[in-house]
Structure formats: C-alpha cells, structure tokens
C-alpha cells in the first residue's frame, strides 16, 4: 500500500509518502495565502520525489489547521495525534513530544503503545511559537537560520518578556538601542520562549525520552534553552518538521488496513 500524510500548518505544509515502513518521499513548502494550492504543491513535490502518482495513493490522512482543505483526503486527524504517531515510529522510546510550530506549541504525553495520554497547547498568544522567533529575527535583521548558532555565542543573555510577542518586540528594539549584543539578545529570546513552553508543559509532565519537533526544532539554540529549562535531555529526530505528516501517513496505513 502507498499512503499519504499531509500536514497543513499556518507557516508550512508538509506531505509524506509512505510505503510499508519506508518514506518514499516528502516535501515541505511555505503555506502562503492559498492553502489548497499549497497542499497540492507539497503533495505533488512529495509524489515526484517518490515516483508515485496521486491516484496510486491508497489512503490519505490530513492534519494541521488546514486539514479540511486537502481535497483528496480520506480522513482528517488532529496534529496532536499525528505528531505522537510520527514520533513514536521514529523513536520508540519517546514519552514526551514538544512540538513548536509556526503559530502554536504543544506538549504531548505518549504511552508505551505510542498513544496520546495527555496534551496541552498554547492559548491565545504567539509567544512560544515560531512566529515569536520570526518577529525577533526581523527586528534584529538576521535570518531565522542564524538565530540558533548565534545564541550559543552569548556571554550575558538578556532578560526578555515571554508574555507577548508584540511587547517583546518593543522590548527588543529598546534593548538593541541600549547597545545589548545581538547574541545576548537572541539567547534571551530563546530562554523566554523555552520558559514559556516549559511552564505550559508542566501540566503534562516531561518524561524521557523527550522529542522536539516542528520547524523550530531546527534551531539548536531553542533545544539547548529547553534542556536548560526542564533539566532533561531532548532529542531532535531526523526531519523534525515532517513528524505530523509522517504520523498522518502512518494513521492512513492503519485506516487502510482496517478497511481492507
């Protein structure tokens, strides 16, 4: 069977094509303003990489905020369930997933069978999400990709608000004007974000192994800040950004087998 998983997030859309236990292809693209176009583009890119046609897919599960705009889906499943499934497949010992995406962050508890037993998501605010980092990168006039490595050079991390992205942006401009070093500011931003996520995750609890997923997982500075905050090791699986789409494809496999 050939299965498809599509994760339509606010910032990026991801598709994974799976056959048996092998990822045949995947794609990650910016979602942009046309969600349906993005889902089609990501899927066709993944299909091209897999050497498979859309009509050959036996079952497709979609997830993410835009999950209902995947016109060729068979079923929708929330990204919380999908992330747990994807991470459990990649890391059988995982018991906690910290997923930090473009517009939300989640902490998910997983049992030994890979099932979600608890979860929490951020409420209302973009602080503690990829959007927070995007805004800060813009203020500091650096690329997002530079933030992680720069943060590791900090000697004296600044204290930055973690309550509100907009207020933190104003704070950042003010600190910069005072002459605070860029790496210290970035380190402060990372600590603020990690603190917010860690507090949120307390109600779920952090049990090892802890996996970090989502686009923000590429940021080594965030990973370090989170580890310092929760005082536990965090593992970033390969291709952390596609865990939701991978989980969706795995759930597609389960559904297809059930129906067969």
């Amino acid at each position, binding site marked *: 069977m050939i299965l498809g998983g599509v994760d339509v997030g606010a910032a990026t859309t991801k598709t994974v094509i799976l056959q048996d236990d092998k990822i045949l292809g995947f794609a990650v693209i910016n979602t942009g303003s046309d969600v349906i176009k993005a889902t089609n583009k990501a899927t066709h890119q993944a299909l091209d990489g897999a050497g498979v046609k859309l009509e050959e897919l036996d079952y497709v599960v979609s997830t993410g*905020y835009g999950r209902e705009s995947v016109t060729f889906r068979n079923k929708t*499943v*929330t*990204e*919380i*369930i999908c992330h747990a499934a994807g991470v459990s497949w990649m890391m059988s010992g995982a018991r906690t997933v910290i997923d930090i995406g473009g517009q939300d962050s989640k902490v998910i508890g997983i049992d030994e*069978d890979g*099932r*979600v*037993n*608890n*979860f*929490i*998501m951020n*409420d*209302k605010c973009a602080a503690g999400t990829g959007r927070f980092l995007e805004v800060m990168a813009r203020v500091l006039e650096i690329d997002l990709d530079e933030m992680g490595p720069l943060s590791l050079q900090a000697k004296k991390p600044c204290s930055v608000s973690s309550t509100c992205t907009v207020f933190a942006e104003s704070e950042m401009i003010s600190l910069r004007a005072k002459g605070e070093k860029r790496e210290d500011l970035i380190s402060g931003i990372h600590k603020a974000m990690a603190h917010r996520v860690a507090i949120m995750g*307390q*109600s779920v609890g952090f049990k090892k192994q802890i996996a970090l997923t989502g686009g923000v997982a590429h940021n080594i500075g965030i990973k370090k800040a989170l580890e310092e905050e929760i005082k536990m090791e965090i593992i970033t699986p390969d291709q952390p950004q596609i865990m939701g789409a991978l989980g969706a494809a795995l759930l597609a496999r389960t559904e297809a087998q059930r129906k067969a």
Partner: protein
Amino acid sequence: MAEYYDKLLGLCSFSTKEIDSLKPRLEKAFEKLGLNRQDFSRAEERVATQHDLELVGVRKILRAWLLDLLDLVLSREEGKKVVYYGYPSIQGPGMTIKAASNINLYIGCPDVVLCHTLGQIFDKITPLLEAAEKSGLPPGHGLCSLQQVRNGALALGIIPVPDLVTGSSYFCDMGSKADELLHEIYGHPAIYVDGIMDSAWGEYPQWLPERLKFLGAQIDKLYATVNDVLGIKVTQQSSEKAMQISRRFFKALGRLTKLMMADPMPVSGVESGMALNLAAASTGVSMTDGAEAIETLCDEVQARVDKSQGILEKGAPRVLNFIQPFSDPSITHMMEKAGLALSSSLVTVPPPKRDPSIQINTLGEDRAEAALRDVYHSGYGLAKRFEDAARLVNIDGVLWGYLFNCRPLAQYSHLVKQWVEKNAGIPTLSLEMDIYDSRSYGPEALKTRVEAFAEMLRARKAAM
C-alpha cells in the same frame, strides 16, 4: 395579519392565540431590544439549525426563556420592583426573596437571561459587549464578559436600572466590583454577600463553624436590606415556599440529568444546558413554564432512550462537562460533532448531604450551610467534587472549560486537571474558552484541542 416575529415565536412553541394576546408586550420589548426583521429572520434559521426542534420540550424551553426576557425588559414599565442578583451564587436567596414578596417583583439574573436569548436565539450579544467596552469595562483588561453583558444592557437602556442589586464577593469577586461600578453610574443600592474563602486544603466537606456564622450573617443582612429597601420580609415560611415552588423544576431537571446519561446520548448538551440555566436566570416563569417544559422534554427524551435513539453513536466517549456556553450553541455542537457525549455535569452528582448535628440558628445560616456544601467556597472542594463525580459517574473524560478572565475558574484550570487525572485516573481537558463571548473563542479556534481530546479518549476506550 402575520407579523415578522410570528415564525420565530411559533418555532419556540408560542401558539397563535398567545402571540395575539402578548402582542403589545412583544412589540414593546422587541423595540427596546432593538430587534428588527433581519434579526428575526436570522434567529429563525439559528434556532432551526442549533436546536432540536423535533422535541416539543425544547421549543417550550425556548419559550420560557423568551417569556422571561419579556418580563425582564418590561419590568419597570409594568410597575414592578426590580432586583438583580449575580451568577452563579445568589439564585437560592433570590428564590426565597421572590417567594416572600407581596409586591409585583422581578428578581433574576439579567446577564444570564440575555446570553440565552439575545445570544443563543438572536446571535446579538455583541452590541451589549461593545457598549460595555465603551462604558467602563474595556477590552483587553481581562474582564468578565458576563459582567459586560449586564453593563452593556444598562448602557443601551435594554434593561431597567434595578431598585436593588445583590451579588456575592465570594468565588466571583468581579461581579461585586462590576456592580459597584454600575452603582456609581446609575445610583441603585447594592448589597454584597461576602464569604470567607480561605479554607484549609483538605477541609471540605467540613468547615470552620465561623464560616457558617459569617456567611449566614451576610445572607441575613441581605434579607434585612431587602426588607428595608422593598418592604419584603423573608421568613421561614417564605423559605419553605421557595423550596415548594422550585421543587417541581428541580425534580424535572434531575430526571433530565439522569436521562442524559443514556448511551447513546439522547439529546444535545445545548438543550440540557438551556434547561439547567433557567434555574440560574430567574425566579419567575422559569419555575413554572420552565418546569413544565422540562417535564415535556423528559418524556420525549425517555421515548428516545427507550428506542436507543441518540444524537451520537453508541459508545461515544462520555464527558463530565463543567459548563456549557451560554451565548453560542455552535461550540457545544462542535464538541458533539467531534464525538464527545457531554452527558454529565456537576449537577449529575449532588453535593454531600447536610450533617444533622450542625446547629442552624437563622434563615441565613440555613442557606449558608447549603452553599458551603456546594463548590463556590473551597478550591479543594471544587477539585474534590470533580474527582468524586469522575469516580461515581460512568465517564471517559472530564472537560474543564474555563474563562481566562474569570479568576476562580482560571485559577483552577490546571489544578482540577492534575487533581482529577492523579486521583481519579480520568483524562481531563483544560480548555480555555469564553462561555458568554465567543468572539475570540469560536468553534474553529477550539476545534483542534477538542478533536484531539476526543481522539485520545476513543483510542483509550478501544484499548481497554
């Protein structure tokens, strides 16, 4: 001649004859409320799609709400004295005052009435919220939207300035602050019922005797003020009369609560919520027409249960739900569409029985003792009641919906989750929402969390 409101009222179980006889009141009230043809047209569609109109009992419950809205809006013109009380804690004394009254009196909670009518039926609660935002309760300040509804309704002249307002400053302290603001603006007297909130963790369902004495004295003071301001004397007889009047209502409600536990769940939580909240909203038609409506609904729901008919599939995860949205039924429907049977609430599990050894000396202490056994006087008590409910009732999960701008509810948001999960082993979703103002918490915003919770519960059930 057909009027623009006939169709909606017909859907809400008003007979043609009744509409004719009520016409002057209806038109006066609708004018005061600013309701026009478009509003009625929208309400017809809203009621038809959001409520289970196949059930006559549902239609009658909607009728009871609309009748209470008329009574509220026209109370001053119709020569009544007007008393408002706060939600959730003062309905009991309110009922007693109503029973004691020998004058033409409207006593109720206008905010709750308006949420269930202008909100649920007409989808027109936003103008009240916006009026409040301009009148001393601005947005972005973490203020209770229920208080905004009352403030806005007064600012727009939809409801009369009362002769007296009473609120508690235990549990919800914003209510009393908001009433203080309204007192400054409109000049009506306000009497607050205080309570001692600092109980020791683990104390419930016991409490220090001083707490009973204090709260009892506060309620006695309320009764004395009602006598001073309105000439209404509350006695033991009026207390008993209040119980008698409300007995029929609560008996019917108890029956409906049990029927909701059937599998498949026979009717939406929207309808059981509309029934339950009649008790919080008013002391007039809710107890008479409301009781009769719920009785009708119970008979119809029983028929569904007998045929194993329901609105969800059999075996859907059953959830103990703290509170239903008041103004926007689409949120409850979203939860049910996600596959959650919102089959029980704290009403499903009554509070502990009175300890007969406790000395009760006054009417106020009698009311206070009942209040202390409920959930508004102890954080531990609230968590414990949830734990007990989760154990005693056959449920798969708990849904603690809280308002971030409601200090008592938000404070318990993670406490209740952790307590119930640890002590009863039941998964709990702590869901930030706004049951009065869904502008920032519409169904789409909440959907991912609710659907994930439903998926989690289904997987857990399947694995057991």
